[in-house]
């Protein structure tokens, strides 16, 4: 066979690796305010281009511009800033607690705070999220007590999940937050099922599914899109594209499609791409999608373009696979700083108030931490019991498990 006809395997590679200079010149970023805002009952085939663009509201000057601006009041925005700052402070403390051996594991949100915090504000009481491990902002913005989060992280005697779950695998039905699975993707189709149930019962509540860029390759993602498309389920399907899946750059999961939002096109599902570091844009798009769902117009797929600034988890060290300074080069900036600047530009916030808020928030987090630690940490103080380990496998403990519990002497 002749050389020229020989096949070869294409294996995508990121632009840069450790030692190289970060380079995001391939990320095309439209100007803030430049992307249209279609009516919520638009025919999906008329907005295919939205899957290849990026909806943005905050411009470089910190102004909110364009058709997606204006969904939140100043007070709401200040509260949003506080949520993001709280999440960041919480992350920092818990990351440190893990380093101190107070728990086994932690995962932070650095750089992605706007996504879950702003999305949460587009929901109504009773709506249900099916989150991954990187949406604690849904809890913080949803009023879930930080102490409870910490109790879970510490697997202490007050852990609402009785020590059964890995740290950060929260669950709070009351706060519209479905039990996090350690298995990637599974919750995406469950969100669609929940939404279908709401429609079957002629309810008004919607579901939101969450998935990472890397996890879109999982089968559950496909099942979710198929079922959502067929039954027009009232669900918002969120893809958080933070550019990385542990050490794997997003090009491996994305392949030749250009974007993750594009996946929706093959299902006739409106697919939007949004600046995930722009609190205002995230909220505006989430609201648009939630309205679609609530008006029984069916699902929406949203890709949040953001960047995972920190390590994947406390078990990971990103310097092994990407340039150390890559996050500084990320062209969409820091969501906290961008919202802060916007509020300052608007005259409703200042550097001083920001500093003060920072201090206040740190205090709150520290005092929550102190309270949580009175209930114990993973290896010290109060802990869930061995009995707790045997409970809750079934509603009623079957005889074989009772025998085993007896054998364990508890």
């Amino acid at each position, binding site marked *: 066979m002749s050389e020229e006809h020989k096949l070869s395997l294409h294996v995508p590679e990121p632009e840069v690796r450790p030692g190289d200079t970060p380079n995001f010149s391939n990320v095309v970023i439209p100007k803030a305010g430049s992307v249209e805002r279609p009516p919520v009952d638009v025919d999906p085939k008329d907005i295919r281009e939205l899957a290849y663009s990026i909806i943005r509201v905050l411009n470089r000057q910190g102004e909110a511009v364009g058709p997606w601006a204006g969904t939140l009041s100043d007070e709401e925005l200040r509260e949003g800033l506080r949520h993001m700052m709280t999440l960041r402070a919480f992350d920092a403390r818990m990351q440190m607690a893990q380093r101190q051996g107070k728990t086994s594991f932690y995962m932070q949100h650095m750089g992605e705070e706007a996504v879950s915090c702003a999305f949460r504000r587009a929901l109504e009481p009773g709506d*249900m999220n099916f989150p991954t491990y990187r949406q604690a902002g849904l809890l913080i913005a949803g009023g879930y007590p930080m102490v409870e989060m910490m109790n879970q992280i510490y697997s202490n005697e007050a852990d609402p999940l*009785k020590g059964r779950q890995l740290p950060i695998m929260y*669950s709070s039905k009351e706060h519209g937050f479905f*039990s996090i699975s350690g298995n990637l993707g599974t919750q995406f189709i469950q969100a669609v099922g929940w939404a279908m149930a709401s429609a079957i019962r002629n309810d008004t509540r919607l579901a939101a599914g969450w998935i990472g860029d890397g996890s879109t390759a999982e089968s559950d993602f496909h099942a979710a899109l198929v079922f959502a498309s067929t039954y027009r389920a009232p669900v918002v399907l969120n893809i958080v594209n933070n550019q990385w899946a542990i050490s794997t750059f997003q090009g491996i999961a994305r392949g030749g499609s250009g974007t993750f939002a594009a996946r929706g096109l093959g299902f006739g599902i409106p697919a939007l791409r949004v600046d995930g570091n722009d609190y205002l844009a995230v909220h505006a798009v989430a609201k648009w999608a939630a309205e679609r769902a609530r008006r029984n117009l069916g699902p929406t797929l949203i890709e949040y373009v953001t960047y995972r600034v920190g390590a994947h988890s406390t078990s990971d060290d990103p310097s092994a696979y990407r340039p150390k300074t890559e996050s500084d080069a990320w062209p969409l900036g820091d969501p906290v700083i961008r919202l802060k600047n916007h509020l300052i530009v608007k005259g409703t916030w200042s550097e001083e108030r920001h500093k003060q808020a920072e201090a206040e928030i740190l205090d709150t987090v520290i005092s929550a931490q102190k309270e949580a630690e009175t209930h114990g940490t993973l290896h010290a103080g109060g802990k869930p019991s061995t009995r707790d380990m045997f409970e809750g496998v079934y509603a009623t403990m079957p005889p074989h498990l009772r025998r085993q519990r007896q054998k364990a002497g508890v």
Partner: protein
Amino acid sequence: MPRMTMIEAIRSAMDVTMGRDETVVVFGEDVGYFGGVFRCTQGLQQKYGKTRCFDTPISELGIVGAAIGMAAYGLKPCIEVQFADYVYPAYDQIVSEAARIRYRSNGQFTCPIVIRMPTGGGIFGGQTHSQSPEALFTHVSGLKVVVPSNPFDAKGLLISAIEDPDPVIFLEPKRLYNGPFDGHHDRPVTPWSKHQLGDVPEGHFSVPLGKAEIRREGTAVTILAYGTMVYVAEAAAEEAGVDAEVIDLRSLLPLDLDTIVASVKKTGRCVVVHEATLTSGFGAELAALVQEHCFYHLEAPIARVTGWDTPYPHAQEWDYFPGPRRVGEALLEVMEA
């Protein structure tokens, strides 16, 4: 009391529970308009509307995953996987999710779903219409696993399963849908309409999960069986002339260990029969439990008669199927030991 086939009994269980409880929904491949390839859901869509009984895309993962979400919402989905052989695409959702949601959320979310699936061979279905995957579920904490052997039990157990607050794998031996089958494939099968166990009350009743039933009393040896193998065991005992006690387990998880242990302590001998492959089949668990709990009463090794450790073949179906001859031989062996 009406006579029902096992198909009618299963349908009736869904009908009765759907009528009593608006949160019961039924779906799966070909389940809606057509009523299922075995017709178990026939008429339900007409009666309850297409949002309570409907067709799904061919995605077992999607069917189970959506059911889990619905259960978290508060519905009670009773779903069909067209053949047990096709459950594997949904295995992750069952094992990692359905089975664990109560535990991992400390009861905030629960998963009261029933996954119905036709199981077992004897219909020349080849390797993808014949499998018996029960042991792949009995190993999973958080699941219940049920295998009925007759119309009465099928209805009563299915109603219990639907009303159960936890996920239940409900395996329907397809070879029994129309009548009891004892493994004599060259003889006609009595239809359920001519069989006493075809007597099934019209309305609501239940058979509890976790209770075995002694189908034949005996003193010489205990046969542990479920599904189709109950009839094979009965026939084998008759034909081998062995005074065997035949226990129909009905529910594998939870298991009625007390009934099993009492019987084996009485007989001193035990044969386990199932159609699934031998190695790591549910018979292994039964043998392990029986030797543990009846060690000092056992007079012979516990024998297992099962499908061979090969994929289920098409042409050699009757060489593969653990029929009355093979069970009879095991009975005699155990008696002589």
